[in-house]
């Protein structure tokens, strides 16, 4: 019996070109298929058009539509995939409001291989529970 390995997919949502480049590379190195967009509005539009991802890596502060509002909209649309918030913001109230918008997990920037390992582990643990 052969086992078909299916690559997981991630959507990186960040207005910072460096963050997009680094986060994309972090996921691709783990064998994930990655798409990157520059703000929450583009992320929401992808889902509206029928695109689906296993995990969304959502930055908090972005122009046009920020991470809090984008996460709120995605959850209101019925999007149930894993959404991980990332930010360098240290204000605890702002972080709480981001988490309260519907995140499955939150990590402080900058991301690195160890943090991505935890993000992926958390994703797999949640996946197994469902």
């Amino acid at each position, binding site marked *: 019996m052969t086992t078909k390995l299916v690559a997981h997919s991630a959507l990186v949502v960040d207005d*910072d070109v*460096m*963050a997009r480049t*680094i986060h994309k*590379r*972090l996921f691709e190195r783990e064998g994930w298929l990655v798409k990157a967009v520059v703000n929450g509005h583009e992320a929401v539009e992808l889902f509206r058009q029928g695109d689906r991802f296993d995990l969304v890596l959502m930055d908090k502060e972005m122009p046009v539509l920020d991470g809090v509002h984008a996460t709120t909209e995605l959850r209101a649309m019925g999007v149930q995939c894993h959404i991980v918030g990332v930010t360098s913001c240290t204000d605890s109230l702002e972080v709480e409001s981001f988490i309260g918008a519907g995140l499955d997990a939150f990590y402080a*920037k*900058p991301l690195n*291989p160890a943090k991505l390992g935890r993000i992926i582990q958390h994703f797999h643990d949640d996946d197994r529970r469902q």
Partner: protein
Amino acid sequence: MAGHLHKRLHDYTASLINEGILNEQFNQLKSLQDESNPDFVVEVLSLFFEDSDRLLNALATSLDQQIVDFKKVDALVHQFKGSSSSIGAQRVQAACMSFRWYCNEENIEECLKRLQQLRNEYFAVKTKLDILLKLEQQILAAGS
């Protein structure tokens, strides 16, 4: 030849970390470079230089307005803080943090001083990173 270049790069990177110019985040970034992405560090450093030039220009323009939009200035400094922390440029990151304090205070004089300090820290790290970038490019050219 390539081995010698690798050693020079390794030693130079270690010296930048010892001096506090870079932190461990830079090594984390470097670990993402491999045979499938041999120019990842060059790519990221080039992005950092372009983005930093853009942000410094935007900050100078924003602080030169008759009525300064401190929220806009703060947002620009926040971006700069983010990109500098992504590559481990910790002195630039620290300069951004103190700049943000004065954006919050809406203190134009201090913001102008912080901008100058940020420029100084950025150009100091850029000089060092330029050397690092050249070493990476030499290694790429040597084919290893």
